């Protein structure tokens, strides 16, 4: 803010003015005036710009410190006020004076207040937490060993109600039992499973009636893993997860939750992991979403671009008015981020790639129409004239004189837009627009950092590949 003052009245300019106009006021009254109202003394000493700038700068600085209301910063306007009195006296005596002090004070205040407002606190960056988050990211969840799964479950009712069935489940020679048969949230349950593969790691997982998986290890944030004994049996004590009833329509209703026991063993070779599959699917959706949005945008943008081309529309006042209106609308539309439009479309058509596509299309129409119209404005009239001169008819003139001039740049801009749309599509996914962005947000929510890193890598690969491809195509066309 203090910098602003400097811009509007650079010191070099001041000295020049001092030399040309003699002050009409002596030092003491000038100082007094500036003490009363910062800048007034300078103003009276014929330093109009300086006076006004000092006044505005002082006002901004004062308002800033008062708004932040931290007494530690009150010194800054006071310092500037004092400097201003001294400066008024100097100006009245036609002495040169720089702007260094108030600018410095203003900058320090702005910097300090900014620091506090942003709550910059490097001590929150905990190394352990960072490691905990980042280490899994070194092993992106794309492929996994091919393996077979041995699955078993038992049903427990939460909370307890009347007529709760026995928590016992038999299947393929396996038996799983829970005691007691029902429990409330956070209560302890003993589960026992037998007939599983012996001496094998077994994942123990909770699944709510609405299909949400809850982890049972650590603070419910890690997979509970136990080994079976040599007979394939396992007994473990679990707590009903605190979130077992989260999202349940009626938490008082006693419903069957399942405790799953999963064993895996490799059968050789590798396969796409579940998350890896989802990432690829998401990537395809995102690319398709961007492609469809671009196609829709082209269809609308081409006719609009003709209305937004000055050289075509400047013929008469009516078309000129259309041009101005269309241009203004395009500029407004273009300035709204696709992300924000996506919020609105998610409200209108619901979550999913369709909302994302509409948002991207909307934004792209404006962006493409502007680019297209600039291409049209840049058409060289010479070749068109030359083709008319050969006796060609109207359609032939368009085909041989206009199209060759606009199609390559149109194509180049369109591919460039598609490129941008793929990037935006991932972001638009964050707010529910579907595709890989939506998947990313979900993975972050469940802290699946290996999945997150798979998404990061996929996005990077797509963006780099598309970037390269679009640059190559544009190089050829332009």
């Amino acid at each position, binding site marked *: 803010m203090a910098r602003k003052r400097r811009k509007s009245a650079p010191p070099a300019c001041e000295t020049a003015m001092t030399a040309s106009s003699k002050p009409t006021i002596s030092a003491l009254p000038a100082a007094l005036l500036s003490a009363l109202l910062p800048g007034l003394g300078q103003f009276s000493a014929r330093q109009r710009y300086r006076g006004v700038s000092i006044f505005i700068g002082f006002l901004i600085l004062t308002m800033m410190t008062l708004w932040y209301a931290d007494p530690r910063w009150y010194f800054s306007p006071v310092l500037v006020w004092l400097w201003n009195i001294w400066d008024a006296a100097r100006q009245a005596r036609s002495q040169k004076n720089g702007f260094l002090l108030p600018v410095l004070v203003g900058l320090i205040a702005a910097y300090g207040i900014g620091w506090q407002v942003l709550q910059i606190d490097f001590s929150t960056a905990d190394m352990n937490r960072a490691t905990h988050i980042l280490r899994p990211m070194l092993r992106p969840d794309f492929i996994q060993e091919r393996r077979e799964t041995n699955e078993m479950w038992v049903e427990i009712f939460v909370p307890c109600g009347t007529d709760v069935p026995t928590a016992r489940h038999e299947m393929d020679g396996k038996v799983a039992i829970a005691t007691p048969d029902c429990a409330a949230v956070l209560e302890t349950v003993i589960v026992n499973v037998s007939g599983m593969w012996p001496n094998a790691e077994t994942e123990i997982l909770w699944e709510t009636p609405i299909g949400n998986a809850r982890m049972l290890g650590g603070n419910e944030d890690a997979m509970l893993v136990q080994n079976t004994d040599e007979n394939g049996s396992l007994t473990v004590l679990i707590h009903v997860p605190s979130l077992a009833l989260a999202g349940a329509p009626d938490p008082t209703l006693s419903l069957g939750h399942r405790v799953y026991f999963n064993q895996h063993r490799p059968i050789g070779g590798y396969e796409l992991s579940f998350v890896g599959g989802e990432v690829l699917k998401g990537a395809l959706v995102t690319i398709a979403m961007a492609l469809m949005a671009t196609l829709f945008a082209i269809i609308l943008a081409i006719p609009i671009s003709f209305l937004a081309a000055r050289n075509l529309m400047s013929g008469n006042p009516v078309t000129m008015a259309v041009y101005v209106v269309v241009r203004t609308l395009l500029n407004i539309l273009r300035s709204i981020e696709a992300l924000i439009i996506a919020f609105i479309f998610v409200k209108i058509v619901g979550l999913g790639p369709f909302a994302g596509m509409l948002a991207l299309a909307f934004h792209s129409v404006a962006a493409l129409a502007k680019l297209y119209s600039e291409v049209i404005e840049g058409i*060289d009239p010479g070749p068109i004239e030359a*083709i008319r001169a050969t*006796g*060609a008819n109207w359609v032939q003139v368009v085909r*041989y004189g206009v199209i060759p001039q606009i199609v390559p740049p149109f194509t180049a801009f369109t591919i460039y837009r598609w490129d941008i749309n793929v990037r935006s599509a991932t972001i638009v996914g964050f707010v529910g627009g579907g595709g890989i962005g939506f998947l990313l947000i979900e993975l972050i929510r469940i802290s699946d950092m290996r999945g997150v890193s798979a998404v990061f890598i996929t996005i990077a690969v797509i963006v780099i590949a598309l970037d390269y491809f679009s640059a190559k195509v544009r190089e050829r066309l332009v």
Partner: protein
Amino acid sequence: MLRIQNLSKTYPSGTQALKNVSFDVQDGEFMVVIGLSGSGKSTLLRCINRLIDPTEGKILWDDVDITAAPPAELRQIRRKIGMVFQQFNLVKRSSVMTNVLSGRLGYANPWMSLIGLWSADEKKRAIDALDRVGIADKAGERADALSGGQQQRVGVARALMQEPKLILADEPVASLDPVLSHSILQYLEQLNKEGITVICSLHFLDLVHRYATRVVALKDGVIVFEGSAQEIDRAKFKEIYGEEAQEVRAASL
């Protein structure tokens, strides 16, 4: 014979570019139009094939009134009038071949031409035209990959495709160096000798002397001189180009 009768052109902006211009061009002439920049040379040439519609006056070509021709007839007339431009006016992104072929649009089957299909005969014609101007080997290149002189030859080849009876050349060599200028004008001279009437605007008097069979000079849209190049003496020169321009022009002679 081309008869230009009382031709006037006033642009919508109010500029009166041509004022009551009348002259005749006999078949087979190499008529050169000279005059200062802004004197109306381009306007005059563009009126002849009606790239610009004149405000008043008539242009009769073999007793057909070009100025009154309806669109279809106008296209028939235009295809017999080749045009060469100072800025070449090639479609830069298209190939040399396509640029030359586009000179044939007035003859081609409209539907075939729209999908870019050209008969073998037309393609052969295009290669022949390029051959005449000595750049048949450049047929496949993009027009903007050629040098200025080569581009203007493509311009001439395009005009040739029209089998023109008249060629309008609007400062065809103003963007070229003197050597290239002569080579382009020699092509036009050659065509002229084969019976094609040429109307050409030029800036440099040495070129005028060398190629013109007759000269028309414009000044502020009015004809101030009509005759042979040899008749342009110092006094006439001053009249055409004005007092101040004299030394500059004289130096370039």
